[in-house]
């Protein structure tokens, strides 16, 4: 077993290990907003030296720590699993911690602004309450009836696979705040809420699908979606959001799930 197998080094691995430390000059153009100071948002440019393989979040940290401590944003895990730092980078929703500088064209100023459709409270921080309200409104928890079994409920691998994609959601709101319908109508449930409804509607153990579908049959429910696919493009977890929405729509039409 202990025969060497790691001779085959790819160029990619070599490049990583060589640890190129060639720094480049980048400009970050950040849309700042602090109502304690000024009633309007302003764009502020920051110049810094970065390794292009670093994350946009690293750049924001560098700005905050070395240039301007007042820059404000949310972050926690720094590797794309907590969902804190969805923001609009070069015009598209992404997680700052999952976006490498080299992938967003550092030749030109990189624009960073808050996600759209939720009230901006300060700099890149938005009010998440309406977002979580929509989530809560789809009853995102297992609904069952009858006595609990003593052991686990059985579920075949195929049944488990049915809703695997939508269990990955980290509630980052990148999808909902990329949706053109949501920008104009914040009462629309939005893709994230539908994704989380999908996660339960198609769970073989759940018995609340009817109720949830009824909720989404609402005027601001799933019929509001215009299949613009921005949500699917934006999802940092690679969830096929639009597909999930279509499945919910079809389940509503056919009442089969």
């Amino acid at each position, binding site marked *: 077993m202990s025969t060497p197998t790691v001779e085959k080094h790819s160029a990619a691995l070599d490049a990583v290990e060589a640890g190129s430390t060639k720094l480049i000059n980048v400009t970050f*153009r950040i849309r*700042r*907003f*602090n*109502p*304690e*100071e*000024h*009633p*309007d*948002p*302003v*764009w*502020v*440019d*920051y*110049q810094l030296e970065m390794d292009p393989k670093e994350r946009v979040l690293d750049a924001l940290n560098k*700005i905050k720590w070395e*240039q*301007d401590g*007042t820059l404000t944003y949310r972050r926690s895990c720094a590797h794309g699993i907590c969902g804190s730092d969805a923001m609009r980078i070069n015009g598209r929703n992404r997680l700052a911690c999952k976006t490498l500088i080299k992938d967003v064209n550092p030749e030109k100023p990189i624009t960073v602004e*808050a996600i*759209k*459709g*939720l*009230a*901006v*409270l300060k700099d890149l921080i938005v*009010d998440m309450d*309406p*977002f979580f*309200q*929509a989530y809560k*409104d789809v009853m995102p928890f297992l609904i069952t009836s009858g006595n609990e079994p003593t052991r686990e409920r059985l579920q075949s691998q195929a049944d488990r696979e049915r809703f695997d994609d939508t269990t990955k959601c980290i509630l980052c709101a990148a999808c909902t705040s990329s949706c053109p*319908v949501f*920008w*104009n*109508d*914040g*009462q629309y449930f939005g893709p994230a809420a539908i994704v989380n409804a999908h996660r339960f509607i198609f769970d073989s153990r759940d018995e609340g699908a009817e109720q949830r579908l*009824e*909720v989404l*049959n*609402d*005027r*601001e*429910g799933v*019929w509001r979606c*215009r299949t613009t696919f921005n949500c699917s493009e934006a999802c940092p977890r690679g969830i096929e959001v639009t597909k999930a929405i279509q499945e919910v*729509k079809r389940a*509503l*039409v056919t009442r089969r799930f």
Partner: protein
Amino acid sequence: MSIETKDLVVPSLQAHTGQGLGTGNPAEAFVVEPARARTKKTPRRTRTNFEMLAWLFMRLSGVVLVVLVLGHLLINLMLDGGVSKISFAFVAGRWASPFWQMWDLLMLWLAMLHGSNGMRTVINDYAEKDATRLWLKGLLGVATVFTVVLGTLVIFTFDPNI
């Protein structure tokens, strides 16, 4: 929206002193707020399938319209010299046949309903105030009924010998 973006780009290290505007706590007064945010009271269940039926209708009518509209365009605008041939006589000739009468009638109804339901969506999206939305939809409704009724009357009461 009127201010030039460029003018407000300020060099880093300058603007933000954190001192505030000196008006107590102005924070509440200014937020970049979207219209119509969801609140705890938002879900007003409609409990009807109206939206679903409208959605289905859009798709069904769309598919049927492909045949009707494209057929219509083909005949009226492309075949036989295109638009130059169209005249009262041409219309009279067409509507002499119940087939073309039905064709145009169906097309009228489907297209109008499809179109006005589509417009309803557009209004729902862009009209932010409840009152505006109500007015626009009212207007849309009147226009739709008027058009459909007028069109239907025209097709049925058409008199080639006027």
